């Protein structure tokens, strides 16, 4: 890849310039010309397969928002295999990555690398624990003595943090790994299964109830939302390489422009959920050669994701209270192997509102409404989401 060499050469030059100028200038002026050559090609690592969870990025691509912010080429890299977004970012495979905050906190402590959360896309946790309506499981305290499903791979920490708050641990609750379908709940292999509001919860409601011949209804289940528990943790956030942000003014400048483009993508998704869902679905089945769940499912996902993003405040600002709650949960959580996610507070560089604030300010000047409310739409699910 040509640009990589240029970037490497350029990074060296920029670092040299920065050292020379360090004595007399404040942090590099990201808007100034001549200091550096702006980046025009960047890549973003997703944390799962293409779906409406990532609508804002595909919309920004489709609507040309990246071009408007001066990028010639933006590559969106799906995951879904063994690709761990924060690891891909550390390895330098991509320029930015989407990942859940607790997972990255674990990586930061375990490997000693430095990454910075530059925008908190999802303001709320979308994780649920779903059980049958007659199971008697109505709160995390009721987990005691039950068999609780989780996907593992770092998706389980909210469960352990919520349990720790109730004085429960893996000696009193049986935690078991569930697969990507919801069969474990439907077949009674677990008492309560983990689900995201925007994906697996819809999958349950896309299954025909053999007793009624109709789709299962929300009233057939008890749903615990981790957002309402002490275990709530911040999820989809945009991560950047801390050292590059500090040393490479072109990268810091690209971060702001990148954020501006994706804010516009998510604003479009907020104002036109049907169109945004269709854009992701088209990108998934064509450009990505992926096989997503059908269009109705994507629209449900778009609707639910918007609820997590537009929580009243401005887009992407990292709320110190929510961050501290995530850190506290991460410190308290102990998994079934007796291991802690983290044992010490992350360093101050683990999040920064500097870039998102600049991006929001520039967009507000351009008249973009970056803090609007989302008005949920009604989505009627169909069998199999087709």
């Amino acid at each position: 890849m040509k640009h990589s060499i240029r970037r490497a050469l350029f990074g060296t030059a920029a670092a040299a310039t920065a050292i020379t100028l360090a004595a007399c200038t404040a942090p590099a002026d990201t808007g100034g010309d001549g200091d550096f050559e702006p980046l025009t090609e960047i890549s973003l690592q997703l944390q799962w397969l293409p779906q409406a969870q990532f609508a804002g990025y595909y919309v920004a691509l489709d609507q040309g928002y990246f071009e408007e912010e001066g990028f010639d080429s933006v590559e969106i890299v799906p995951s879904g295999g063994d690709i761990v977004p924060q690891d891909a970012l550390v390895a330098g495979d991509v320029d930015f990555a989407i990942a859940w905050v607790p997972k990255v906190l674990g990586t930061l402590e375990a490997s000693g690398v430095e990454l910075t959360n530059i925008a908190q896309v999802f303001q709320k946790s979308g994780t649920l624990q779903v059980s049958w309506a007659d199971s008697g499981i109505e709160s995390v305290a009721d987990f005691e003595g039950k068999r609780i499903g989780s996907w593992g791979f770092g998706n389980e920490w909210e469960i352990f943090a919520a349990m720790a708050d109730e004085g429960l641990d893996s000696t009193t609750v049986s935690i078991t790994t569930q697969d990507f379908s919801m069969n474990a709940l439907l077949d009674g292999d677990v008492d309560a299964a983990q689900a995201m509001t925007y994906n697996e919860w819809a999958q349950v409601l896309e299954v025909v109830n053999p007793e009624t011949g109709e789709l299962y209804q929300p009233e057939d289940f008890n749903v615990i939302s981790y957002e309402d528990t002490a275990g709530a943790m911040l999820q989809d956030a945009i991560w950047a390489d801390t050292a590059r942000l500090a040393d490479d003014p072109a990268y810091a400048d690209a971060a702001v422009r990148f954020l501006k483009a994706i804010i516009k993508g998510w604003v479009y998704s907020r104002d036109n959920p049907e169109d945004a869902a269709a854009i992701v679905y088209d990108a998934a089945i064509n450009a990505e050669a992926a096989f997503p769940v059908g269009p109705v499912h994507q629209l449900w996902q778009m609707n639910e994701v918007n609820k997590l993003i537009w929580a009243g405040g401005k887009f992407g600002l990292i709320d110190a209270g929510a961050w501290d709650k995530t850190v506290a949960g991460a410190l308290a959580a102990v998994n079934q192997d007796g291991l802690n996610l983290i044992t010490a507070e992350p360093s101050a560089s683990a999040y920064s509102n500097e870039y998102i604030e600049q991006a929001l300010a520039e967009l507000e000047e351009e008249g973009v409404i970056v803090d609007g409310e989302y008005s949920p739409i009604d989505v009627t699910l169909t069998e199999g989401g087709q």
Partner: protein
Amino acid sequence: MRRWTAVAWGAAGILAVAVAWELYKFLGPADGFVVGAIAGETGSGVMLLPRTHDRAMPHLWDMVARLFESTSGGDTPPLIVSVASAALLTLGIAAVGWLIGVAVGMLLGLAMQRWRLVEWGLLPWIVVSQTVPLIAFAPVVNVIGNQIDRGGFPWPQWVSVAVIASYLAFFPVAIGALKGLGSPDRIHLDLMRSYAAGYRSTLLRLRLPAAVPYLLPALRLAAANAVVGAVVAEVSIGMRGGIGRMLIQLAGQGSSDPAAPWGPTFGSIALGLVAAGSVALVGLGLRRYRRGEATA
């Protein structure tokens, strides 16, 4: 005549599996049969008979019907078309992996047969190489590939997948070649020596023909390994468009659309059969060297 009997037996085998599936689905308990379950304790006990309800075991005709419905709703092509194109992509990559694996395996076999010291030094490593789990090895190849790509030499993801496939494919070839090249009888080697034949003519006229019955099963194993390697590697490094990725993605719809994940499952079975069958064609061309081998 014998060929038709073979085809008939093959078809009967597939039919028997189909009948057994539907028969068990009809007779077996919908929610399975569990022994030792403790009341009130979910997940306790051992399941002796698997579940037969429609989510666990869809009817065969539902699976077939699903093949002709659109893959992901909307304007997406029928599932069977998506499966076929994904399988073809994986087959192509597996074929590249197979070729690399066969070339490397043959070279290793030749070197080990020629020099005892090489055999002593290499063979243990070749055996050890196969004990490295693929899921540990694949990300390493991917990282190296990415670094080469960033270094300016284009290295698309499918090359990594082919390399991983070749890693599984070279093993049977190396072992088969070593064994086959060493298989000629002493008396034949002595005859070649009495003709004052050098290494090269002994290799071409005696050792390689004698190795054919050993190599053909090795090539078939290598083909099957290359397919498995390609599918697992695709999933592991997240390559788009292949059958491995499709398996993972449709598995997520197992609750609401249980027949869908069977499409790519059938696709990968067909893929393995095509790969092994193509090697059988190689065997046809080498028929006159296959006297010692039981024909398969």
